[in-house]
């Protein structure tokens, strides 16, 4: 260790290092270090310590802190050392403070003055040491104190100082762009520095500046290109060569800058083609650094405006990288391939085998990089293989961070490219099982929605099968210990919704399982809540099917527990369950219709169906409605809509009394209501009616615009990420379920847009078949393309619905009407007709008051009316208009701004007028259709991140 000379370490320090090095355990090491700290604490505060000793103490402190121990007692001594005259001591002091302190440390204030002084020093080493401290220790507030000195140093005779001054200025820019924004032009000036080293250093800040704002630096393209040309042509002195490459680090920085400047700029890019091409040719690919430059060239080529010749050279280099034995080069090759396939997707094919080799490589880094590449090149033809591989890999790793990432990628790919629902569900199951708590909750909601809605294929049977298989797989999976909460929520929901739907499992099977879940995961309230609601659904379906309901003992004890739960949410669910069980079959069927979860909840916020009634009332002499805004001094009643729905309400509760109802208004509806208002008092039926009158004139145009708006959204992707909005699902179902009229156009456009995405991906698909099987499945197999069903209509759905549901008779008349319909109508219409009865009943039920009103004849007439008329042209209007359109063509959309959830709680108000209408108007061809829309009120229609399960209940 002869080399220690000049750095003056004492035997003590050597001993310390040695003993730490020899320590057998962390505990022993800690003991030694703590001893050392004690010694230092004592010694360092002794008076008259020789500088040399002091310096060594500080070094020892630094060392201790590097080992993870607190050395803060010595910070002040390090600060003092920076004041010293001796260069050695001063530098040590600066080294220590840059390692110890941060820019916001209290001691900084003691250093700033020294730094100011040192920046002006004649000794350039002192200046350098001070600049070093500037980079680390100066914050936004102290920048002005040193800025003038640093600016002066930009012209320092020593190039090392100029370089560091530039870096310091760069650092200021990073910390507080505003405080040096007037000085950024200095970077441009330094680009012309005589010393290539300084120029090279200037590229660092310029790169960052250009990355932030490309356009202000476009003028430099020519300069950068000519610098790069000169560098590549070896115009710099030999001193800048590195492994026979002319200044490779400068070349790399320049190429990075050019990539930024040329991105999407044809003109700028054209200036670069020659020099990049030259570098491709000249670069020595045998050395590591040569390959670094080549890689940077590829990045540049794939970023700037494409040039076929350069792309070709890039592809050549990539294949060389991939064929190399070096893992580093393979890694770079895969990365480069990922960049290049964005521009020329076909090059992936040539390298398929190499890519697969990388995928199977033991090197984790390389594997991950390859998965990243696969992720970029996934399409509907290879999604199964890729996602399968990804999941396998996901299961095999422990790194939660990467697990999360890869899980979300799997989900994304599966949503985008799933070839079948079966596959989708299986994939989701695997993802959830192994990374359940790491995936976004939205994914779970999407999965539920998919199971509920099906794939939009023509075949309703398939949907039923899908559900049964989901139920079956979930029952199986429930046997496994310790499932993630999110997954359990999905399972509970699906079991509740479809557990007994196909008759394979009895209610007691399912409820037993659900109770087990609630018990096994008793700490998880969300899961419990899902389980409770699922239980309620199962019982409700049983009651509705007029089967005898025997509550399992474990279920009963669960309910008892929940009734006394600390969670009000759980309590409420339990009480609701109790209440539902106590109701008769008809009522239950209305509250909890089966398989209605994906029906949109459509509420006519404008209550436009009341228009006729209002008209009548006015004719009889009632006063017309005065809009709230025009009614100064009168009571504000605007929030009646939100009264029973606190979440959605933007207003607080109102405690003022309502305006006295006008006698004219109080005709037969309120009277009937009064009969049964005990549960939910609905004192406001008169208001909606009032509002109707004034909105009437504007109705047709409003409805039209709403229709337009939704149709636009109807073209959305089926599994896209953002499909959670109720609007989307509305339009989806429109395109799926209807064959004729306006909606057909919609469906067609959905299909064609999907085709387009296929076509754009086709180039990758064309593959030579002699490649290995995996390669083929990853890269090729365009034959599979047709596998993906084109979304069209759900014509067949209706018939199976009838079959499926006829065992849950709501009233003999309804069933009859359902069955009668297919004869006269295309099957798709039946689909719409069928749930009608449910909806009629359903809207009424939560507010029992209407029960009495619902008389079978009315329902029947409404239903029967449906097939009779040609309603296709109206379908769009109907579906589109979530806000309006329960029972009237004249659905004004005044209130559509309200969020959907707020609407869902209005059955009381909406149901009431409906009855009026059906009796006053008789059979209306639109009735049943509109009612169908209403059915969607049922079930979870996840419109927010945390779907409120109570929506199931409250409609």
């Amino acid at each position, binding site marked *: 260790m002869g*080399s*220690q000379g*000049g*750095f003056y*370490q004492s035997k003590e320090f*050597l001993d310390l290092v040695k003993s*730490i*090095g020899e320590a057998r355990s962390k505990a022993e090491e800690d003991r030694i270090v703590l001893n050392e700290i004690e010694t230092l604490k004592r010694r360092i505060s002794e008076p*008259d*310590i*020789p*500088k*040399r000793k002091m310096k060594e103490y500080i*070094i020892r402190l*630094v060392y201790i802190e590097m080992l*993870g121990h607190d050395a803060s007692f010595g910070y002040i001594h390090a600060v*003092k050392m920076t*004041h*010293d*005259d*001796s*260069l*050695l001591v001063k*530098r040590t002091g600066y*080294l220590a403070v840059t*390692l110890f302190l941060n820019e916001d440390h209290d001691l900084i204030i003691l250093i700033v003055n020294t730094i100011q002084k040192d920046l002006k020093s004649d*000794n350039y*080493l002192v200046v350098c040491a001070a600049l*070093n401290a500037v980079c*680390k220790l100066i914050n936004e507030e102290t920048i002005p104190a040193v800025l003038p000195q640093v600016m002066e140093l930009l012209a320092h005779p020593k190039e*090392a100082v100029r*370089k560091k001054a530039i*870096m*310091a200025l*760069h*650092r200021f820019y990073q910390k507080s762009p505003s405080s040096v924004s007037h000085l950024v032009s200095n970077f441009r000036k330094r680009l012309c520095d005589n010393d290539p080293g300084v120029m090279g*250093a200037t590229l660092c800040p310029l790169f*960052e500046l250009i990355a932030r704002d490309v356009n202000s630096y476009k003028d430099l393209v020519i300069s950068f290109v000519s610098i790069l040309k000169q560098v590549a042509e070896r115009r710099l002195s030999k*001193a*800048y060569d*590195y*492994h026979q490459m002319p200044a*490779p*680090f400068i070349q*790399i920085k320049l190429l*990075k800058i050019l990539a930024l400047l040329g991105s999407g700029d044809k003109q700028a890019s054209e200036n670069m083609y020659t020099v990049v091409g030259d570098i491709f040719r000249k670069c020595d690919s045998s050395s*590591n*650094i040569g390959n*670094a430059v080549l*890689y940077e060239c590829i990045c540049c080529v794939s970023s700037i405006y494409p040039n076929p010749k350069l792309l070709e050279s890039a592809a050549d280099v990539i294949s060389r990288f991939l064929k190399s034995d*070096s*893992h*580093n080069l393979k*890694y770079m090759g895969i990365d480069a391939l990922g960049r290049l396939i964005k521009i020329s997707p076909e090059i992936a094919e040539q390298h398929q085998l190499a890519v697969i080799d990388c995928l199977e490589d033991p*090197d*984790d*880094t390389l594997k991950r*990089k390859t998965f990243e590449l696969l992720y970029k090149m996934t399409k509907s033809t290879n999604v199964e293989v890729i996602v399968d591989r990804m999941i396998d890999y996901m299961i095999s790793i422990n790194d939660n*961070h*990467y697990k999360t990432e890869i899980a979300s990628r799997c989900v994304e790919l599966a949503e985008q490219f799933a070839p079948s629902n079966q596959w989708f569900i299986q994939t989701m199951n695997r993802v959830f099982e192994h990374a359940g708590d790491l995936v976004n909750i939205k994914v779970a909601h999407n999965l539920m929605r998919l199971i509920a809605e099906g794939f939009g294929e023509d075949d309703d049977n398939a949907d039923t099968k899908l559900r049964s298989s989901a139920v079956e797989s979930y029952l199986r999976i429930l046997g496994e210990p310790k499932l993630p909460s999110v997954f359990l929520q999905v399972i509970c929901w699906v079991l509740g919704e479809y557990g007994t739907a196909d008759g394979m499992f009895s209610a007691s099977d399912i409820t037993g399982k659900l109770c087990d879940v609630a018990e096994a995961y008793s700490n998880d309230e969300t899961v419990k809540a899902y389980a409770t609601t699922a239980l309620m659904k199962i019982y409700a379906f049983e009651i509705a099917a007029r089967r005898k309901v025997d509550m399992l003992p474990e279920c009963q004890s669960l309910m008892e527990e929940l009734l006394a739960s600390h969670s009000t949410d759980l309590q409420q669910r339990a009480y609701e369950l109790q209440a539902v069980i106590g109701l008769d079959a008809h009522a239950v069927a209305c509250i909890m219709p089966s398989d209605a979860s994906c029906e949109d909840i459509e509420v006519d916020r404008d209550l436009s169906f009341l228009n006729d009634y209002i008209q009548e009332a006015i004719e009889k002499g009632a006063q017309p409605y005065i809009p709230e805004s025009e009614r100064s001094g009168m009571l504000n009643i605007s929030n009646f809509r939100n009264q029973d729905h606190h979440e959605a309400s933007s207003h607080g509760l109102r405690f003022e009394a309502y305006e006295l109802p006008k006698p004219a208004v109080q005709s037969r509806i309120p009277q009937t209501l009064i009969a049964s208002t005990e549960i939910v008092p609905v004192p406001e039926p008169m208001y909606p009616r009032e509002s109707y009158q004034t909105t009437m004139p504007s109705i047709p145009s409003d409805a039209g615009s709403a229709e337009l708006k939704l149709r636009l959204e109807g073209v959305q992707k089926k599994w896209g990420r953002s499909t959670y909005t109720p609007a989307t699902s509305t339009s989806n179902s429109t395109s799926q379920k209807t064959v004729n009229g306006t909606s057909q156009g919609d469906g067609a456009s959905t299909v064609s847009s999907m085709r387009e995405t296929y076509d754009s991906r086709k180039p990758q698909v064309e593959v030579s078949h002699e490649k290995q099987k995996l390669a083929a499945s990853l890269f090729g197999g365009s034959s599979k393309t047709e596998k993906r069903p084109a979304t069209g209509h759900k014509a067949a759905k209706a018939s199976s619905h009838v079959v499926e549901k006829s065992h849950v008779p709501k009233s003999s008349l309804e069933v009859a009407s359902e069955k009668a319909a297919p004869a006269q109508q295309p099957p798709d219409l039946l689909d719409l007709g069928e749930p009608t009865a449910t909806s009629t009943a359903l809207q009424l039920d939560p507010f029992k008051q209407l029960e009495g009103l619902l008389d079978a004849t009315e329902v029947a007439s409404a239903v029967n009316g449906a097939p009779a008329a040609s309603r296709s042209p109206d379908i769009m209007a109907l579906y589109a208009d979530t806000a309006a359109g329960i029972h009237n063509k004249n659905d004004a959309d005044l209130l559509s701004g309200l969020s959907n959830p707020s609407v869902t709680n209005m059955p009381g108000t909406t149901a009431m007028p409906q009855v009026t209408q059906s009796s006053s108007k008789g059979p209306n061809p639109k009735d049943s259709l509109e009612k169908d829309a209403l059915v969607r009120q049922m079930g979870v229609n996840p419109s927010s991140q945390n779907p409120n399960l109570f929506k199931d209940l409250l409609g």
Partner: protein
Amino acid sequence: MIKAVMVMNTQGKSRLAKFYEYLSVEKQQELIRGVFSVLCSRAENVSNFIDAESIFGLDSRLVYKHFATLYFVFVFDSSENELAVLDLIQVFVETLDKCFQNVCELDIVFNYSKIHTILDEMVFGGQVVETSSSEIMKAVEEISKLEAASNAISLIPKSASGWRSR
């Protein structure tokens, strides 16, 4: 920019740790441990790159090189090139080698401040300023010389209170 430079031995003992953004001592230790646990699980003959996002956050890459008993680790963001950083490590080690003639772990342990000096000549404020080992050597030697000179002058043991009272 370069986020951190670390040198640690194959037992996970830190030999040099320099972070270009301020981190608390605890955080530094945590990162060092995190890096080591990944490094020691790496097989021979695999790439020198590691996906460091789980340790250092978004947009961070890690390049390491294994020399005898030491790992040299550079952590940086997307503005650097992995292969180039690998060569940067090479430059660093070459320079150390020139400085100490056949550098070994003990040289690094005992010449803690000199290692920092060398590194500061290469990487300044997180940016690479010099990539030629001979240039770095020149600068470091000059510093040593000047330091020795200034030290020789002040070797006459001035009382510590002398500089303290200032």
